[in-house]
Every structure is written in structure tokens, then in C-alpha cells.
């Protein structure tokens, strides 16, 4: 039974790490600020959730599990807010989103 939990935890951790790498590649490859933020959000949400899920399965006792859940709650609350504030500030500052050449608005 314990190996099943370990396997599940590893699966989650590896998947989370993979998504974080994808997010990092996206930050480098995307054409403008807003699309880069979109790439970063992959790390922020799915990557974070999967890694924390993997760690949750590894937690030795209830106290650690509660702490991990609190970290998740904190991140779920703060990271979308930070992203929102950042995008909003950029838009207020007059930064136009990138459009495909030829696309008109």
C-alpha cells in the first residue's frame, strides 16, 4: 500500500516539475508581456498544485499536512491576485497586447 502512495506522490511531483519547466520555457519563448504572464501562470497554478499534492502524500503526520494545505491556500489566494495586479498595471500603463501580424482590432 505504501508503494502506491509513493508512486502517486512521485507521479504528482514529476508532473508538477515538468509543468514548471514548461512554464519557464514559455516565459522565454512567448512574444510579449501578457503571453509571458500566461506562461508563468502554468507554474503558478498547475505546477504548484501538483507539487504540493505530491508533498502532501509524503507528509509524515497531520501537522505537516495542515501546514502544506495552508501554504496552498495562501498561494491560491495571492498568486492570481499578484498576476491580476501586474496585468492591470501594465494595461493601465498603456501596454497593448501583442496581436498576430495581420490581426486587427
Amino acid at each position, binding site marked *: 500500500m505504501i508503494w502506491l502512495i509513493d508512486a502517486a506522490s512521485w507521479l504528482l511531483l514529476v508532473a508538477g516539475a515538468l509543468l514548471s519547466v514548461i512554464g519557464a520555457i514559455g516565459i522565454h519563448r512567448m512574444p510579449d508581456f501578457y503571453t509571458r504572464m500566461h506562461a508563468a501562470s502554468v507554474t503558478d497554478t498547475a505546477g504548484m498544485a501538483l507539487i504540493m499534492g505530491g508533498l502532501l502524500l509524503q507528509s509524515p503526520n497531520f501537522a505537516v499536512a495542515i501546514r502544506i494545505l495552508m501554504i496552498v491556500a495562501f498561494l491560491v*489566494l*495571492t498568486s492570481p*491576485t499578484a498576476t*491580476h*495586479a501586474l496585468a*492591470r498595471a501594465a494595461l493601465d500603463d498603456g501596454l497593448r497586447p501583442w496581436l498576430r501580424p495581420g490581426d486587427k482590432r
Partner: protein
Amino acid sequence: MTLHLLTVILLTFLVISALAIARMRELFPMVMLTGLYSLCSACLFMVLDAVDVAMTEAAVGAGVTTVLMLAALALTGGREKPAARKRTLMALGVTLATGAALVYATLDMPYFAAAATPVQQHPITAHYLYTMPVEIGVPNVVSAVLAGYRGYDTLGETTVIFTAAIAVLMLLGTRQRKAMRPVNDNSILRVVAQLLAPVILLFALYVQFHGDYGPGGGFQAGVLFAAAILLFGLVCGLDAAHAIMRPNLIRIMAAAGVLVYGGTGVATMLLGGQYLDYDVLAHDSVQGQHLGIMLVEFGVGLTVTATMVGLFAVFAARGSWRG
């Protein structure tokens, strides 16, 4: 092994962010990178098991300082002025010489975690670790050393912080010009800030009064308190922050903290002990030590909170910047 790897990675990040800061001309990303630098340092302190320091570094370096720097930027300009070629060469020379001297000095330093060093072998280390539980009896050795054995040092530090607050208040004045406006109609930020601020305040209280038992104490709690109020002030405007802490209250708190600390010392003298010798504060010496440490940590917390919030308020009151 993993720890070593982690240390190396964090140190690499530190060097990279320092180099990036040196290469930049725009001040705004520079401030952001200094925040990152502080965050890496905090992680490094965490790896080294210095949780007390890590907490302060994370809250001050990555949080409060970044906000204060941005506030200063709003008053000045966003771009570095290019210096004259001759002066940059001279600066480079001085920096290289200092760096070389520091690297040369590290050759004399013991290896990390080496046992045969004065720090490990000096009798005072054994005293702190083995006699402290009997003499003072608090689980967190750092608090016992900071507020108990080296109470004079901490009194000095608290006074330095207080002096800094006075100096900035005198330089920038308390005159209100154009107060910082709140972030316009952003209800998302407002709701989240109002949700987070009480939690941070609660955590600060825990850190303040749990400092004897776990990592924490006056400095950490003070900056956490200030961080919560800064967050609130940034999002809801300076007036809203002043509604919680009036300018007068901030000034009184900053002075009261030092007064509590110094007053504890005077109280011990009046009770027949020496200055900051907490033994005489209660019927038995261990109880007295507990009471004394709690009192001086409270004083430190008051002064640190008031100073941080006061600095922010002074900057925010001058610039017409949006958070």
C-alpha cells in the same frame, strides 16, 4: 549532499541577480531584483537553519525595503544617471581591490560546519547551550542570547532603529503634501488585501509572543506587523492606513518601544539588580528572565513596527504615486 546542492544553487542565483543589477540602467527592475536577492538570501539563511534571520530578511529585504525603494523612486527618477568614465574606472578599481581583499580574507575562514573553530569551541557556546536551559529556561536559544545574555546589544540595535526613524522624520518632515491615492477602483486587490492583512497581523502576534519557544521575537514580529499595514496602505491608500495607525500613535509607539526596553533595565536596577538583569523581576530568577525577555521583545516589536510604518508613511505622504 542535497543541502550542499541547494546552497550552491542559491548562491548562484545571488551572483546572477547581483550581476544583473550591476548591468542595469533602469532603476525599477533593479529594485525588483534586489527583492529577489533578499529572497534568495532568506532561503540561504533557512538552509543554514537560521530561521529567525530568514524571517527578518524575507519580510524586510523582500517586502518592506522594496516598497520603501519604490516609494523613493516615485520621488526621484526611474533611470540611473550615467557617471563620468573616469569615475567609473576609479569605482571599478576600488571595488576590485575590496573584492580581492575579501576573497583573500575568506582563505583564513574555517570551512563550513568545521568543528575546530573558536565559535564551536569557545566556552561561551557551551554556556549558552547547556547552562541557558537552567538559567533562563526558554527553548529558543536565539531569543535567550538576543534578549538575555546580550541584552545591551539589542538595546543598542533598538536605539539605532529609533534614531533612524527620527532622522528620516526630521529630513522628510511630517508635512502632508499630496497623499498617496488608493489603487483606483480595484476591488480584487482590496478584498484580498483585507483578507490577508488580519492573517499577517495574527501571525505577527504569534511570532511576537512565541519568540521564547520558537523562531521569532520582536524584530520579526515588528516587520511582519509593518508588512501587513504597508500592504493595506498600498492597496487602500495612506489615509486608510492612517485610520488604523495615526501619525501621532506611530511616533509615540516608536519612542515607547525604546522606553519599555530601557525602562525594564531601570526597573531591574530599582529592584536591586543590575541593569537588564532580569533575575530580580519575579520571585524566582527563571520566571524573572521569562518576564524580562518578554518585556524587552515587546519593546523591540513596538519600535520596529512604528519605524517601518513611519518611514513608509513619510515617503507615501510626499509622492503622488499610485501603489
